């Protein structure tokens, strides 16, 4: 059975190889091949899942060692896979959502002549992501970690002819690199501390080392997680990443890749459990990001950017949960899965809307779309209800549990974190309602389609009818089916998982669960959540439902303006890092040329001058030569006389 694990990775990898090297002859069929291989991967995952369910809770973990990767004295890195419940969850999520989004892309990228390559990249991403969650040691995980980074780089920059896209791709990769630095330092620390970096040995022998080391490792892992999961302070890339095609935003930047950080933290739970400081930092980062993302999400008019902000904030929830320790891990993953469903659904819905609106992304130019695209409206609405945590839907179950756990952490930080989480819930309700209202309700604020090149997010997937008013239409089946499936997920998944805590039990052997008891009682917390939810929706309705939405964004308060600019994070980066870096490199180039090189050239010049002066002695007059000869002879004789020992 465990020999199947490699196939999980191999199938999409094969697809990527074939599609990228296959050449034009695959343009016709390539996308179906890619989708098929993704589905194969999901099928294998399902088989393994079934097999796993058949076993007892303890012996469910499977191992497969392919070959010894880097055998160096005292340094053993194997290409080996580990499939336990945690990995299993991710495998199903990734391959499942992945397959759906492949299907969606078939329709979405129909008009793009580079569709084959797009699917190649998607398969590459699937392979890397599966490798990430299946690796049984941190080094192999690192490979997958960078692999998904590469895939996201390629996909964000898929429309490379747009400078904005190319820049966004580069930014994403660089910010992630900073995180990777943390991961590699963490791995090095593990190596020097434990002599290995395989999950088993490291996590089992955590107790034998000092807490300081563990804190260091934990913080480094957190840095890595921040990079990948767009947590403060490394969140700045996620917004720009929306330059990529919408399916990419749905799959990579909502459902799967950005949650890798949560996976890493949960996977390394033992380390964090052993170092409360690191754990607290994790929780704080999560809480901060939670608010940060939510605030940003409120101000954005670009529908994808608004959703990106929401993603940031939801992942903040997960990280917060992961920072709460055993009482939170399971809920972090649970929220991760449900979020995977409804956020992917929301993005696909957004894509469908943009598809219909000539790739217009500005919500102020939507409005009243519910009549024109009912399926999209329905699925998007269900996703919306799920994310705001409408009682009964997925989001409710997972998010509510997280808020409870936050309170349950106890002490002042418990209150603070819990409060933040509640506030976040309210803001979430607010901005999602805003999106909903601006997009599907109210009167039409449609604008004639801009030219392809000036389009804010010119997705050339759809044909442009420059200058015409858009006439929205429902998207083709290939696009609606995935949306419907995901909508089902976002409605029922949460309830299913919470059914006598099946999900928690399922994960318990890996993530060691214990019940958290909020000081004010779970019911009270739930009530508070619902109140917050109603408040958020109410305010949003008052602001955007009652009065008409201006097509041109009002100037807004200071906070709004700051939030539109991602709370000035980019400006900070630009001024401090980019400008500073440019000055540094420029001055260094100068130094290298004038100082380091100048010294050498200077010596050369001085030698030349000296020889030039000596050259004067060669005046060409035989007699002066004769003098020197004569003098030389004299000196020689003198020398000999002296030598003969006077």
């Amino acid at each position, binding site marked *: 059975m465990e020999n199947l694990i490699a196939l999980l990775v191999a199938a999409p990898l094969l697809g990527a190889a074939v599609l990228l090297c296959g050449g034009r002859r695959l343009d016709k069929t390539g996308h179906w091949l890619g989708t098929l291989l993704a589905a194969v991967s999901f099928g294998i995952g399902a088989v393994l899942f079934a097999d796993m369910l058949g076993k007892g809770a303890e012996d469910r973990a499977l191992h497969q060692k392919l070959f010894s990767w880097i055998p160096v004295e005292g340094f053993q890195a194997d290409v080996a896979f580990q499939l336990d419940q945690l990995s299993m969850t991710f495998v199903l999520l990734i391959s499942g959502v992945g397959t759906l989004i492949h299907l969606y892309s078939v329709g979405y990228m129909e008009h793009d002549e580079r569709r084959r390559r797009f699917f190649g990249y998607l398969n590459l991403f699937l392979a890397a992501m599966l490798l990430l969650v299946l690796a049984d040691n941190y080094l192999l995980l690192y490979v997958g970690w960078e692999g998904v980074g590469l895939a996201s780089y390629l996909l964000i920059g898929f429309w490379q002819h747009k400078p904005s896209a190319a820049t966004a791709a580069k930014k994403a990769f660089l910010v992630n690199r900073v995180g990777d630095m943390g991961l590699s330092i963490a791995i090095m620390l593990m190596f020097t501390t434990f002599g290995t970096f395989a999950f088993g040995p490291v996590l089992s022998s955590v107790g034998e080392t000092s807490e300081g080391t563990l804190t260091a490792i934990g913080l480094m892992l957190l840095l890595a997680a921040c990079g990948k999961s767009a947590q403060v302070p490394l969140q700045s890339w996620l917004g720009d990443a929306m330059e990529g095609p919408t399916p990419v935003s749905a799959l990579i930047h909502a459902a799967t890749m950005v949650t890798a950080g949560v996976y890493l933290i949960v996977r390394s739970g033992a380390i964090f459990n052993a170092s409360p400081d690191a754990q607290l930092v994790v929780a704080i980062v999560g809480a901060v990001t939670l608010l940060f993302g939510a605030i940003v999400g409120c101000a954005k008019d670009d529908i994808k950017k608004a959703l990106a902000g929401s993603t940031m904030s939801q992942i903040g929830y997960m990280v917060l949960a992961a920072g709460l320790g055993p009482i939170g891990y399971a809920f972090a993953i649970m929220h991760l899965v449900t979020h995977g469903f409804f956020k992917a659904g929301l993005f696909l819905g957004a894509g469908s809307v943009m598809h219909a609106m000539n790739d217009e992304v500005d919500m102020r130019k939507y409005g009243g779309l519910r009549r024109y695209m009912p399926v999209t409206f329905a699925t998007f609405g269900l996703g919306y209800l799920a994310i705001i945590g409408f009682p009964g839907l997925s989001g409710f179950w997972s998010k509510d549990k997280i808020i409870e756990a936050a309170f349950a952490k106890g002490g002042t930080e418990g209150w603070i974190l819990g409060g933040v989480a509640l506030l976040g819930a309210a803001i979430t309700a607010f901005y999602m309602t805003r999106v909903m209202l601006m997009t599907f309700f109210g009167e039409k604020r449609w604008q004639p389609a801009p030219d392809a090149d000036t389009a804010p997010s010119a997705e050339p997937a759809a044909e442009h009818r420059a200058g015409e008013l858009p006439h929205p239409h429902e998207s083709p089946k290939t696009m609606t089916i995935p949306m419907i499936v995901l909508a089902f997920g976002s409605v029922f998944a949460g309830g299913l998982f919470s059914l006598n805590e099946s999900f928690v039990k399922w994960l318990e052997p890996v993530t060691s669960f214990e019940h958290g008891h909020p000081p004010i009682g779970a019911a009270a917390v739930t009530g508070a959540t619902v109140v917050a939810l109603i408040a958020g929706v109410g305010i949003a309705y008052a602001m955007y439902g009652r009065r008409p939405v201006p097509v041109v964004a009002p100037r807004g308060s200071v906070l709004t303006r700051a939030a539109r600019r991602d709370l000035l994070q980019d400006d900070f980066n630009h001024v401090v890092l980019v400008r500073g870096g440019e000055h540094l490199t420029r001055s260094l180039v100068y130094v290298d040329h004038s100082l380091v090189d100048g010294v050498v050239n200077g010596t050369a010049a001085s030698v030349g001058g000296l020889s030039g002066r000596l050259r004067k002695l060669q*005046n060409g*007059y035989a*007699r*002066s030569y004769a*003098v020197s000869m*004569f*003098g030389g*002879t*004299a000196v020689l*004789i*003198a020398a000999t*006389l002296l030598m003969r020992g*006077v």
Partner: protein
Amino acid sequence: MSALAAAASTGEAVQFWVLGTIAVIGALCTILMKKAVHSALCLAGTMIVLAVFYLANGAYFLGVVQVVVYTGAIMMLFLFVVMLVGVTAADSLKETLKGQRWLAVLCGLGFGILLISGIRHAQLNHFNGLGRVNAGGQVEGLAELIFTKYVFAFEITGALLITAAVGAMVLTHRERTERAATQRELAERRVREGVQLPPLPAPGVYARHNAVDVPGLLPDGTPAELSVSRTLRARGQVRDVSGQALEDLKALEQASAERLGRDNSREEASK
């Protein structure tokens, strides 16, 4: 001749001091005289003195050879060349190379001091004269050595000498490469160049002397440089007599005027 003793006799001492002084003076003059001819003559003197010293040292044959070869042949050769280049051409002793003279003097002094100190240091007191070797006749002794011990060196120097002679000829001799121009061609060239159509003026014309170094005088009495050979001009050996010639002319006219005046008075008397 008596075999020379290790130590020199008093007579020899006197001779040495007198002639030695002369030799040194000669040498100094050689390098200090402005004109090459004088240098050559001084050198000749020094060499003769050296010849005498050879004799005094018992190298009779060498002394004679010295006189014959050096003072006779080589110095004469020098003189010939000097004549060729110009006897009286004096080159200024003014130094053109900066610091050359001081360096030279310095080196010279240092070198001399070195040599002398070297000799002084070499403790050469024991002289066993040439008595024994000259017993069988010196020339025979030399001949024996030359033709036995030094025969190869001798042959080689011979070859060297011949080569030198040939080389000298090659260097100085100039083969006429092109046909000599005929009178006609020369005339035509003169016309073409148009510098000096008529033949050059002869020296000494209108001048009192007609020696080759006296330029002819132009009608206005100034000397005609062209009438003197270029070499002489180059050496500045042209004797200018134009001034004197003009005076003579004046005197001539005065004399004639006196005579005419007398004639006038005589005519008045006849009326």
